[in-house]
């Protein structure tokens, strides 16, 4: 991109295109692999803020996560289910961390620990998407909490796998 083109526009400053490679000149951290090994989530500050990015290792390209990264929220500690449908992470608004779940099928993010009242960090989701573990400061030290999303969620299973009826 030439300097001239930047000077030519008078009021629009486009952010530079994010580096299209997995690793950039910036910090690329906290890798999370999907169960099938196709997807890699990471935290990168290549766009001047901490963002969770999702990389398709098969097509060697980044995938959009609409509605995930917002300007006033810090996202970190990503974890992926088997085919990368579910993305679990820490979402901090005004300094308060919550465990959050983003569903790539519905493109919706929800906070799982609203009302939990204790400090949380380092969440991880099981490959099938049913269980989530995270660290909790509930007893005044770091302990492990296990959240069961229940038997009625849509499990993240490979195509063609029969669903067991409970």
């Amino acid at each position, binding site marked *: 991109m030439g300097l001239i083109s930047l000077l030519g526009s008078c009021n629009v400053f486009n952010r530079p295109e994010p580096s*299209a*490679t*997995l*690793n950039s*000149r*910036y*910090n*690329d*951290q*906290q*890798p*999370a*692999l*999907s*169960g*099938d*090994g196709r997807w*890699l989530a*990471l935290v990168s500050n290549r766009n001047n803020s901490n963002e969770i990015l999702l990389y398709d*290792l098969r097509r*060697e*390209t980044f995938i959009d996560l609409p509605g995930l990264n917002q300007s006033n929220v810090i996202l970190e500690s990503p974890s992926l289910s*088997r085919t990368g449908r579910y993305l679990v992470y820490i979402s901090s608004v005004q300094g308060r961390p919550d465990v959050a779940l983003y569903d790539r099928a519905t493109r919706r993010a929800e906070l*799982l620990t609203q009302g939990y009242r204790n400090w949380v960090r*380092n969440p*991880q*989701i*099981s*490959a*099938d998407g*049913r*269980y*989530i*573990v*995270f*660290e909790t400061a509930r*007893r005044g*030290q*770091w*302990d*492990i*909490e*296990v*959240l*069961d*999303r*229940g*038997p*009625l*969620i849509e499990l993240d299973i490979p195509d063609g796998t029969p669903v067991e009826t*409970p």
Partner: protein
Amino acid sequence: MSSLVTGCTGYPRYLNFPFDGGGRGLNSRASDLEPQVTSTYIVFISDRNGSQDVYLFDAQQRQLISLPGLNALDEIASHPSISEDGRYVVFGGSRQGKSNIYVYDRQTEQKRNLTADLQAEVRNPIINADGTQIAFEIAQDGQWDIMIYDLSGNPLKLQ
């Protein structure tokens, strides 16, 4: 794990793994850190026995599983991760200021240093559920980058 669920409250719900003061449970008097869950196992870090080690908890049987030969007295373990079949445990180990990524095979009870040839700090490994790929961070060129290895330690060529 679903067979353990009793009671009549709805989902999502927190599963209650009782605190065990004797150090045989999921949670102990010490810090219990960096958990990773499969539908059967929870692997995590604890310093309940005086050194920072990897622990494996069977969530169905509700008991710890021993990992012979995995933990070393002179090593600080961190960030464990387990394949879904429970065979491979990957973790970071720091010894005398040198960090490496290890793969432990529960079938052979052997651990292998995956990063012996890398002259750089490495951390935060994760193995995928299929047990075929291991991603980790490497300190290169003054910043953190991500590398992916296959189980034999061959680096994946990354764009």
